[in-house]
Every structure is written in C-alpha cells, then in structure tokens.
C-alpha cells in the first residue's frame, strides 16, 4: 500500500513504565513544540506519570482518563473527530492507550476492528496517532493485530516503517464474526414499526433483570431501537430480537433476513453532514461496550454487548 495519507498510525512497544514515560513524553513534547493540538488518552496512573515527565508542557495538552475516553471503546473515535473539528486544518497529535487486560473477549475483538478502521476513517485527516503497547503483557491476538494495523513501529530496535501493514478492509472482513443466537435466548418478533415500543419495553425489563444499571439500560434501549429501526428500514422479514447472556456480556442480538449494510465501514464515524441515514451503527457503538456486525446465509446479525456489572 502506498501511503499518501495525511494521517500516521504508529505502534510503540515498551518494556517498562520508565520507557513508556520517556518515549511518550518526548512524543507529546514534540507536538507542543510544533504548536500542534495534543490529546493524551491514557490510564490514570500513566497520565500522572506523563504530567511529571512533561513539566510545564503538560499545560498545553488535553489529558483524558482512558476509563472515560474508551467508555465505550468507540468513544475514542468521537474524541478524536471532535478534536479535529474544533481546529480545522491544525495537526492533531494523539497518544491513546487503555487497559486491554480488563476487556471482555467481545471488546477485544472490537478493539482489533478499531485499530484496523483507524487507517481508513482518519486517513485524510491531519492526525498523528501513537498507540503504546506494553510488550510484556500483550496477548498474541493483540500483538498480531498491532503488527498489521500500524504503518510505523517503534520497539527496542528503534523506529521503522512497518512492512507487515495489512489492508484494513481485509482485516475487517476477517473480524466480521457471525454467531447464531444462543439456544437459550428469549426472542421477540419485530416486523412492524408498531413493534418497536414493545421491543424497548422488552429490553428494559430483561436488561434490568440481568442486573444492568439504569444508565446502561437506557443506552442499550436506545441502541436496540436504532438497530431495529435499521432492520425495519433496510432489512427484510422475518426480523427478530434475541436477548441472552454470553458469559461476561449480556447481548441484544438483532437478526433480519436482509443482506446488511454492505459497507464494511458503516457506522465507524457519524455522517459528515446531517443525513437521512447512517446514524444507527454509529450510535450503537457509542452506546454499547462492543458491537458485532456480520452476515451469513440467514441474513444480517448485529450483536450489542453490555458488560455485566458484577
């Protein structure tokens, strides 16, 4: 792939907190010196460490606790898009890292999609993005995806162009998992606009029984309503909503018999201008902990995950 992109996407593999602080500190300080906008989304402990490292430069940096910036994970796209929009044309320098060890399997898969999608969604934006990875604790899945989704790699041997960079669309196709609804799911048929209200009540009731808190239930109800509206507008009957427990997450699974959105990148970003459609999947990703979209011979599956709050 020839890169004439405005954006760059670099992985930093560090072995210690000291290495993290000096490498990321230098990276952020360089942005301040160049009068770029600088945004740091990192776990709270690292955030404090970076402030110390940067001294007075820290005042020019927007720091966001990763627990907020990545809640849910796709919120980080919104934070970056909003920062870009607030100063059009000005380069934005971002460091983004979260505690991946705390993520559920569904969220880890979605994070891999996120890393692939960055390369297309932000390609034509003046964005310099650094993703630090703790080399000592990285799982094989995450190590593999990080090697495939960053155009530049920095590790103990130095900085280099990444020859393993892979086509993001091919990666996203591979990550478009389709899982049939679990056999113990409870199911509601939803083929008419008039069924939506009942579907929302159904989700609220069962999500509450599953122990999800009020705000999470509100968000899930809105997300399900949007995805069912998509299914009613673009999909084909029969359309069904399945609810079930899938280990660490509680799942609202919308299935219809249509071919699905087709566009691999649907809903990773909101429509650039107010539009008649294109908000459903974007909203779902901003409201749920993980979102799977896929199609099989039976139709389109959208799985909305909410983490159990146990």
């Amino acid at each position: 792939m020839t890169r004439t992109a405005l954006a760059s996407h670099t992985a930093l593999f560090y072995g210690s907190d000291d290495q993290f602080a000096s490498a990321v500190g230098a990276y952020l300080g360089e942005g301040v010196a160049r009068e770029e906008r600088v945004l740091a989304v990192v776990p709270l402990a690292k955030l404090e460490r970076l402030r110390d490292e940067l001294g007075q430069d820290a005042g020019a940096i927007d720091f966001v606790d990763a627990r907020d910036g990545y809640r849910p994970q796709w919120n980080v796209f919104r934070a970056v898009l909003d920062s870009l929009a607030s100063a059009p044309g000005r380069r934005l320098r971002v460091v983004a890292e979260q505690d991946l060890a705390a993520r559920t399997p569904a969220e880890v898969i979605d994070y891999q999609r996120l890393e692939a999608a960055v390369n297309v969604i932000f390609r034509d934006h003046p964005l310099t993005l650094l993703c630090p990875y703790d080399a000592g604790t990285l799982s094989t899945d995450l190590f593999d995806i990080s090697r495939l989704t960053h155009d530049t790699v920095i590790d103990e041997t130095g900085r280099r162009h990444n020859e393993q960079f892979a086509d993001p669309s091919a990666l996203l196709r591979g990550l478009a998992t389709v899982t049939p609804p679990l056999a113990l799911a409870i199911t509601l048929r939803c083929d008419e606009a008039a069924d939506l209200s009942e579907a929302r009540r159904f989700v609220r009731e069962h999500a509450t029984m599953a122990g999800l808190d009020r705000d999470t239930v509100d968000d899930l109800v809105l997300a399900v309503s949007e995805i069912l509206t998509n299914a009613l507008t673009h999909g084909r009957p029969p359309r069904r909503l399945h609810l079930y427990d899938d280990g660490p997450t509680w799942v609202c699974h919308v299935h219809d018999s249509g071919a699905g959105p087709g566009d691999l990148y649907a809903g990773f970003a909101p429509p650039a201008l107010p539009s008649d459609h294109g908000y459903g999947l974007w909203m779902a990703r901003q409201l749920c902990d993980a979102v799977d979209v896929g199609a099989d011979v039976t139709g389109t599956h959208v799985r909305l995950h909410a983490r159990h709050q146990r």
Partner: protein
Amino acid sequence: MTLTPELATANLAELEPGSHLCAFYDTDEQLARIASTFVTWGLAAGDQMLYVAGDDDSATTMLTSLLDDVHGTQALASGQLQIRSFADTYGGVHDGDLAPIEAGFRAAAEASRKSGFPALRVAAEMGDFARFLGSPDEVLRWERRSTAMQRDLGVSSVCQYDLRHVEDRHAAGIAAEHRALAPDSHEPPLATFLADLDPWGLRVAGEVDIANRAALIRAIQSRAEVSPRVHLDLHGLTFADVGTVRGLRAVAAALPHDGNLVLRRPPDLLRRILDLTGLRHQRMVVEP
C-alpha cells in the same frame, strides 16, 4: 337492536387524512367510548378536533371526563378541541341545498390550518343532522358528497348514528357510504402532540419513533406556518430516536432566519442523542 353493518374497523394509529368513518351505538356509554377514542387519537396527532353535538353542554361534560383530564382541559383551552352544537355549526334552516353545509365544512378546514393545525377531524352526533336534512335519502346524499369532499380537504370524521333512532334498513345504506367503522376502544397513542398557545408550540408526551415521528414533524411544521418561533415542551417525552432528532433539526434548518425551534425541558436522552450525533442547528435552541 342487533344490526351490525358489514364494515371493517379502522386502525386509528394509521388513519389516512380524509377518512370518512361511521359508528353505530345504542347506549350513551357506547357513544362516549367511540367519541373519546376518536377525539383522543385526533388530539394526540396534533390535529384540531371539532365535536358536533346535539347538546354541547352534555358533550363537553362527557368528553372532558373521558379524555385524560389534562388533555381535555388543555385541548379546550388552546382551541384544539372545539365542541359545538349542531345549530351553531349548520344554522337552523335547510332548504334542500347541501352546498352551504359543504361551504361551512371547507371554511372550518381552512380555519384549522390557519390556526396552526395539520388537519381538522370531526366527530359528529348525527341524530339532529338527520332531522335537519329531513329524510334518510337526504342523509345518504350528504354522506356520499361528504366522502369526496373530505378526501379533497384531508378532513377525517366519524359520523355517529344512534341505532335507537335509525331504522335497520337505513343503517346498512349509511354504513356503505363510509370507509370503515370507528372503534369504541383502542390502545393509547404512543405519544401526544398537544397544541400550546403561550408559548406558541406543542406539548410532546410519550414515545416518538419511526411509527409516529412524521406526525410530530407535520404538527410542528403546521405551528411554524403560523409563527416561526415554535416551542416544544418535552417534559413528558419518554423516548425519541435519532430519526426524530434529525427531523427536528431539519424543521429548524428550514425555518426563516428570524424563526427558531425551542426545545424546552428535554429529557437526558435527547441531550445524549444531540451529543453523540452532533445534529445541532443555530435555530434549534435547547433550553433547560
């Protein structure tokens, strides 16, 4: 009385403008149920409701006690619900000419639009009307003429006939001049869009989604045609989807430069949608 005219029952949730419905009752309780169901759904859609009663005082008592208290009282105060006696509506003398009655109908529909309502709906007790026209054949002649006129004006109605005063052989003919029967009960509407005079706008309560958002947008646009500063009181709004917010933004964007759409007391959910979608507009003002 056992007559059951062979007509389907209308679904008020999907009533096409200009629908000419009828109903037959043989008790006052049944009339009350039919009337309040039709009026409730008309008011909920933001339409103006004209109730033509044999006796307007007893009709007022009946409707305000049957409609949810707040709705009935507010709708009477704002002029969205008007209850008129037959005599006030059509005058006292009939000489066989239906044209003046039709002209009165057309004037009422026009007045409704000019008062900021998307459409007029009429519920009429037909007993005195039949006496006024003089013969069952004249009633049929009027009903036939009314079907075409209502379609033309987009005015929906229910003509309520008292089976205690209509002969069986006439009832079937009357039914045949109508599209469907009005139901005597119905689920409550998903949402209600009630007219407000001060501030000018609508009071929105309930859930708005793909099933009813077009009706909300239509009601707002009708208010905006009278005055381009429209206030929506959203205190009772329990759900709105992104399509609703997109519609509100589009209405605001289409207002003249001195107009605005004020969203008062929006629920948290609406703010959340605005934050996540960025669907804002300078003429869409969000108030606490």
